[in-house]
Every structure is written in C-alpha cells, then in structure tokens.
C-alpha cells in the first residue's frame, strides 16, 4: 500500500490541493469545476490544467468533476441549479451556445441561469479538402460545388457540433449545397477524409496541421476572423471569398446565475491575471489552444452574440429539432 500513498500524494499535488493559503479569497475553501464531458477530452484537460493555478491564485482547493451527457446539457443543468456562492463553476465548450438553438427542451435558460465568468480558450477551425479535390482555394471550391451540387459531401463530428455548423454557416453564406455526413466524433471523420471517402471537412486546426504538412490534406482557409499566427500564409475564409465568415470553437467558464459580488471580483482578477500569464500561455500552446481574453461583462456580450449567431445558422440549415 506504500505505492498507493505515494500515488495519492502525487495526485493531490497534481490537483493543486497543496495550494498554500493566500491573502485574498472569497468565502469558500473548495471550488468545484464541473466539466460536462468525459475525462480525457479537451474540455476536461483544460479544466485540469486550469485547476492548479486557479486554486493557488484564489487560495482554495479546486476540484474537477466530470458530469458528461447529452452534448453537455447534463453538466450545465447541474451547475445552473447549484448553489450560487462561487463554489460551483462550469467549464464547457461551444456546445453551450449552440444547444439553445438546437434543443427546444433544455432544462435551463442558457442566458438567464448562468453568470458568465471568462472566455478560457479558443481553437480555430480550418476548411480542408482531400488532395484529389480539384479546388485550390475557397473560391474554386464554391465554383466546384455550384457546377455539381450533388457531388460534394462534408464530414463532421456529429449533428450540432461546431464543425458541422461551421459547414452549415459556409453553405448558407455562399448559397452552395453540400451533403452533411455526420460521424461519431471528429477523429473517424478525419480518417475518412484522409482516405478520400469524403472530400471536405471543417476541423480544428491542431488536428489538421500535421496532415497538411505531410501533403495528405489541402488547407483552403481558417475559420477565424483574422489569420492565425502559426499559419500566416493561409487566408481566412472571409478574405478568400465569403466576407464576414467567422466560426471558432471556444471554451468558457461560467457560474450559476447570481454570483455574489466578491466572488465575481476575485474570479475576474484571478482569471485576468492567469490568462495573461506566461505559465498558461506555455500550457495552452502545448494543448494547441489559444488563451481567451474576455472576462466578466465582455464575455457576457460575446456569449449573447454567439447564441444568436448559432441560432440563426441552425435555423437556416434546417437542422432537425427535437
């Protein structure tokens, strides 16, 4: 059992439980971050990387708990109805702002039942095609789709995910038709793209880059509003012929509605400091995500805009509602 103790100690350290008590702290000593996805996913990893530094900053114990299910709604619902003293937080992905448009029977109100805390991280998506597709730019792809409306399929990680709706947004803004082919997750879709079984996909940049470098995929554009610093030669889709196009995956931190003022202030201060820190920049770079910069009310406005945008996309795409 000795090994067990060593291990337990390592675990405690890793979870940031050994955090020394520091001066400022709003009146809770344990903070639970609910992740509404399974252990090991990007959201979970972000939460665990954030837990240590955040705990040190606030002088509290930060524990990550996975409550997966129903595209994140199970965990979100838990936090929506949790005690609003700042001890229960939620770290979730773009699903949070897509769900209101997609699901008409959500057990909570995405705008009313949460306090928006901070935009933690962003992941740009990229529009990629298999090398056999005779299109070297976004404009050529649009041309191709117009010539042969039945010919192009695009893959996604599933109905209502960010890379499905990035495609639907593209379709509705260009007026072309592509058949959506959903997969159980991004990885199997990528495999079919690499094998040439589907021609087009919108997927997260970190996944795409190694395949582009090895020549197995061709990148036509990035989905962000501005070019990505690591790929300065790749145009944005907006530049390349679809003005105004922007769609990224992002991860936000929320609390239940009505967080007390002191909790808000401490969290704002702690996250502003952390998200600008060298430590987080290094960690996030390793995970291939970019640190978010929006905190507090700026983030709240961002969330409201995103909900509206995705609701529009879901509607114009005619994604089946339940």
């Amino acid at each position, binding site marked *: 059992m000795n090994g*067990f103790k060593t291990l*337990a100690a390592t*675990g405690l350290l890793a*979870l940031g439980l050994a955090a020394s008590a520091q001066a400022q702290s709003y009146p809770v000593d344990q903070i*639970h971050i609910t992740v509404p996805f399974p252990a090991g996913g990007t959201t979970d990893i972000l939460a665990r990387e954030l837990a240590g530094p955040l705990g040190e900053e606030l002088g509290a114990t930060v*524990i990550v*708990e996975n*409550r997966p299910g129903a595209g994140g709604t199970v965990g979100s619902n838990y936090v929506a109805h949790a005690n609003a003293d700042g001890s229960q937080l939620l770290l979730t992905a773009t699903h949070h702002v897509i769900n209101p448009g997609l699901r008409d029977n959500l057990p909570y109100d995405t705008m009313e039942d949460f306090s928006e805390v901070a935009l933690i991280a962003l992941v740009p998506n990229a529009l990629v095609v298999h090398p056999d597709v005779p299109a070297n730019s976004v404009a050529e792809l649009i041309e191709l789709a117009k010539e042969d409306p039945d010919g192009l399929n695009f893959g996604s990680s599933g109905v209502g995910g960010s890379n499905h709706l990035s495609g639907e947004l593209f379709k509705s803004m260009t007026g072309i038709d592509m058949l959506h082919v959903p997969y159980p997750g991004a990885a199997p879709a990528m495999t079919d793209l690499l094998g040439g079984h589907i021609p087009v996909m919108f997927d997260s940049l970190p996944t795409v880059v190694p395949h582009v470098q090895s020549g197995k995929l061709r990148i036509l554009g990035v989905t962000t509003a501005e070019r990505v610093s690591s790929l300065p030669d790749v145009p944005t889709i907006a530049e390349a012929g679809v003005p105004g196009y922007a769609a990224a995956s992002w991860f936000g931190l929320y609390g239940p509605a009505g967080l007390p003022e002191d909790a808000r202030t401490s969290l704002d201060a702690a996250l502003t400091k952390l998200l600008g820190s060298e430590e987080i920049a290094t960690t996030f770079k390793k995970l291939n995500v970019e640190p978010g910069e929006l905190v507090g009310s700026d983030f709240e406005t961002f969330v409201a805009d995103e909900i509206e945008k995705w609701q529009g996309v879901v509607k114009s795409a005619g994604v089946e509602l339940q």
Partner: protein
Amino acid sequence: MSLSKPLLSGLIFLSLGGFMIAHATGLRLGTVSAMGPGFFPMVIGILMCLVSAVFLGQACTSKHPAVGTISVASVRPLLLVITALGAFAISIDKFGLILSTVLLVTISRFAGDERLGWLPTAVLAAVLSAFVGYLFWYVLKLPLQLWP
C-alpha cells in the same frame, strides 16, 4: 407458480417488439438514401416479433407441456437484492456514502437463507463504509457526499 417457458419467452419478445414498433412509428423513417431515426428500431421491432412467433409456435406445438416450465420457489432473493440496489440509489444523494452503504448491507443481509448475525452485519457495514469512504471519497475524490 409455473409457466411454460416458450409461452413466456414469446410474450416477452412480442411485447418488446411491439413496443419498439410503436415507438419507431413516432419517429421519421426516412428513405433508403437518407434513413431516418425510426428505420433501424422499426426493423429490430419487426424481427423481434418474428422471433416471438417462433417461441409462441413452440408453446403451441410442445408435446410435453410439463417439460420446459419454470417454477419460482421464492422471489425473496431477487426482491431483496433489487431493494438493496434501489435503496442505495435513492439514499446516496441525500444521506451520503456511509449511510447508504449501511443501508445496502443491512437490506441485502436478508436476501439469503444463511444470514449474518446482527453483530457481524454491523462489523461488515462499518468496515465496508470505512473502506469505500477512504478509497472513493478521500483518495479518489469521486463526486459523492460522504455524510448527509
């Protein structure tokens, strides 16, 4: 109580199949090139009904009605084991890990013919709740309450 096994099997799968079909009709069936969510459950439901027809056929043509019947001498083990599971499920959110462990051990004690004495039951409950409390709550930090 004794029932013919083929008859009971047939009735179970007939009702399961009927249920699948009934639910699937509320879903879109779609076309071959774009199958809807109802298609697969519908096919399964129909196949279940076909299978149940085989069982019912066996029940009708069985030459020896006495062969292939089940008899349930006692439902007590099943009932008490299920009650113990149910009690644990209901109590763990409200009363925490320790008390629901005690509840599960106490209820399941009655399930067998050979029962633990009350003292050993108490000791078993104490040892198990200490163990799971230490391991799952303290060391592994499952999101469980320990205590009400």
